[in-house]
């Protein structure tokens, strides 16, 4: 849901960033603003969480880690990995 809602914002940034040098700088300025930085952390978290749980689901589809115990463990791993990548992102942009 969140990724869906962030789509127009991201395309807008792509749009202005390709409208010439001034647009590129304007897009960078936007990315520096506090609210967009905060939003980017939330977007990064949802994206990484989605990515890791997606990989987990694909692995389960091809019969990797189907047992309940393994599935529970990989679910936690996906949760933690998503959070860790969001924190790494936060650390990177600060």
């Amino acid at each position, binding site marked *: 849901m969140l990724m869906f809602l962030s*789509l*127009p914002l991201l*395309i807008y940034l*792509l*749009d202005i*960033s*390709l409208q010439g040098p001034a647009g590129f700088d304007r897009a960078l300025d936007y990315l520096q603003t506090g609210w967009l930085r905060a939003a980017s952390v939330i977007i990064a978290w949802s994206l990484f969480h989605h*990515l890791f749980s997606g990989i987990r689901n*694909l692995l389960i589809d091809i019969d990797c880690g189907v047992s309940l115990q393994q599935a529970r463990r990989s679910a936690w791993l996906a949760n933690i990995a998503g959070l860790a990548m969001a924190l790494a992102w936060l650390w990177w942009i600060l």
Partner: protein
Amino acid sequence: MSRPTHGLRDWLLQRFTAVYLGCFLVYLMVCFYRQPPRDYQQWHDWITHPAMAIASAAFILALLVHGWVGMRDVVLDYVQTLRLRLLVLSLIALVFIGCGLWALQILLPGAG
């Protein structure tokens, strides 16, 4: 509204697009991490390189399909009345079509 084959087709679509989206995203992140574009020219040249333009246009299409199947499933699960369902689905479809045309129009003219 749905025929029996749609479930499997969508399931497959969702997985194929997922693999492409995942690979492309990881590629993007590696590129940005190793060499973030410093100015407009670098950024423009990188993204309008024909291979990159085609790959990112395919990314947009895959993203729209993947997003549509996902959002539609959420709506079918959580919105129970038919009218509201149609309304919400139409709005989402409009946003997706709009975003898709917008993004392709940004990415594709530069490729020529």
